[in-house]
């Protein structure tokens, strides 16, 4: 095999690996634009991987994906309610969601009779499509590639996008201008979490075809890193998601590749994206600016 063959192989795996990260990160960009910082993405992905699998078994892959989105939106709604309307601490809610999901998924798997994992039957998984670049590709890959562009358009070219940004940048001024700050935040949080939910359902209903109690494997946190990497630019989210997906795949690849695995430890490769993110946010590559009101509830004076 030539070096190029290997490169294509890794790239092909990356295409799948980038989906949950990019979806969750795109949703988080929407939320953070309005000033809500949701570190519960990991929990949302995990929980919706479970509900997605159960939904798919009950009514096919479409129901499964919808169940995932619905789960994400429900958590997003609760998160939005607590952090926007009740002025709760966003970070703490996020941590709570992560713990709750960790416990509930493991709990439910035991109830389902097989604590180790729960498999989604082949027939209930998303059917692959054949394309010029490869056979049996998930259609969600293309959805994922398109969404950041859509969000980019929404944020920079539409009236609604301007309002969303205003809410995150200067909620008091937005309020004076007649924008319903908390409502927009709630909406963004709900929709954004819905995308993370889709990412979770993708893992179980499409990519891996089963749920385990640690199926999210840190992808929610990686999505957060991707958001920071992007500086809330949806197009850079796509790039970030790809880089993270690529390194995830590369690390596994190296761990199986004789001759290289003895020299380059895969654990070091797996660290690289986190180090890159730190360098990026530390300003080595460019100053990143976040909404002024990020993480703070809006209290009308």
């Amino acid at each position, binding site marked *: 095999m030539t070096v190029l063959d290997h490169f294509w192989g890794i790239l092909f795996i990356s295409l799948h690996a980038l989906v949950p990260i990019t979806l969750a990160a795109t949703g988080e960009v929407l939320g953070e634009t309005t000033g809500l910082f949701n570190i519960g993405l990991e929990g949302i992905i995990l929980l919706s991987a479970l509900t997605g699998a159960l939904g798919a078994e009950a009514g096919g892959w479409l129901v499964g994906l919808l169940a995932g989105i619905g789960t994400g939106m429900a958590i997003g709604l609760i998160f939005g309610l607590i952090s926007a309307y009740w002025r709760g601490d966003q970070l703490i809610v996020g941590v709570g969601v992560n713990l709750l999901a960790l416990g509930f998924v493991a709990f439910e798997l035991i109830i389902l*009779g097989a604590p180790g994992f729960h498999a989604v039957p082949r027939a209930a998984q998303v059917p692959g499509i054949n394309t010029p670049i490869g056979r049996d590709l998930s259609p969600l890959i293309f959805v994922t590639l398109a969404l950041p562009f859509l969000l980019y358009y929404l944020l920079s070219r539409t009236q609604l996008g301007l309002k969303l940004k205003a809410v995150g940048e200067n909620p008091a001024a937005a309020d004076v201008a007649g924008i319903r700050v908390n409502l927009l935040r709630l909406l963004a949080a709900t929709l954004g979490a819905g995308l993370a939910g889709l990412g979770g359902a993708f893992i179980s209903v499409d990519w*891996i075809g089963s749920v385990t109690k640690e199926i999210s494997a840190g992808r929610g946190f990686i999505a957060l890193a991707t958001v920071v990497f992007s500086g809330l630019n949806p197009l850079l989210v796509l790039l970030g998601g790809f880089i993270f997906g690529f390194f995830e795949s590369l690390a596994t690849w190296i761990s199986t590749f004789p001759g290289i695995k003895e020299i380059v430890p895969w654990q070091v490769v797996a660290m690289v994206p986190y180090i890159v993110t730190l360098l990026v946010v530390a300003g080595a590559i460019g100053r990143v600016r976040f909404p002024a009101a990020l993480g703070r509830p809006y209290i009308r004076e």
Partner: protein
Amino acid sequence: MKGRIRLLTLLVAVSLLVSGLAVMTGGASAGAALKGRVAVILDVGGRGDLSFNDMGFKGTDEAAADFGLQMDEIQSASDADYLPNTRNAAVSGKYDLIIGVGFLLTDAFNTVAAEFPNQKFAIIDSVVDQPNVMSIVFRENEGSALVGALAAMVAAYYGYPKVGVVLGIEIPVLYHFEAGYRFGIAWGNKKYEQVKGTNPNIGLLWTYTGTFSDIAKGKAASEAMLAQGAGLIYNVAGPLGIGDLEAVTEAVRAKGQEAGPPFMIGVDANQDYLGDGHRVLASMMKRVDRGCYKAVADVVHGTFQGGIVSLGVINRGIAISRYQDLLDFIQFGINAKAITEADRAKIISNWLEMRGKIPYWIWDAVSELEMKIVSGEIVVPTANTVEEMQAVRAQYPLP
């Protein structure tokens, strides 16, 4: 019924073997009053893997049902749970026998068995040197040599340059698998040369994923191996096999087909019924269920003794999967909801077709190796420490 008789035969054989080996005394006398309960403590892998843990559960469950005992299952959420879980079970004093399924429970059993000398314990995959502990170990290297030889010859037959193995956490038990597999591949290469005149030089791709639970890692590792030319992937990581099989299935589909190659090789249980019966070529069966059954039966019959029970190819504690095993384990798969009753006929016919495509001489060669292991003519290397493993790797580098 047939299975039961075979099981009894096995039990008799094993008991004879054990009583021949063991010189321990002091087990409870026959007829001692039973409390009617057994506990199964699982390690972090947990049940639902369709292999190792489920096999331990299956054997204990069957024994409990046969002897009218109640079985309690105790899960461990992390390795901080092993000691308290084991101790809780012993402290309660409710159990006739406490079975630990998995090597990771070794330290906990060592500690608690010393604290409760009158409590009977059994542990799978580890040697706990205490008079009240039955240590049930397997010679996985022998079975792995069989599937290794099969894999090398089949890969060569279908024109693949490599075979792969996806392992779990780096524990000594897994070294048995890796060492045996390496030996088997080398043996298969040589055999192929004898028959066909050219050495296929099938190479080995191997990785320790460091997990017995993250299925995604199994899939990613298998994808990487398949892309590097592996024709068969041996699953040595319990539930990760689900991920391995996903990768194999996608590779098969990408060729526009349904039946392998590439194939997966199952582990511990018979996993041939997965993949519609024609993507898992064979399984290295490690009869954890029989070990657990034996431990319970011995307690019930008052013949329980501490010491080592070693199961290998010779006493069918280790075996390569055959037709009868497929029939037995389809039911196991149905019970675990991995397949449905409607799949049964299709799986059987697919399996027969898959096996039929492999030339006869390859199966004969595998049988030959099996015979030579049983007779002792061939001693399959094994490893328990890092150094021993490195020595085996150096002897069979399989580039």
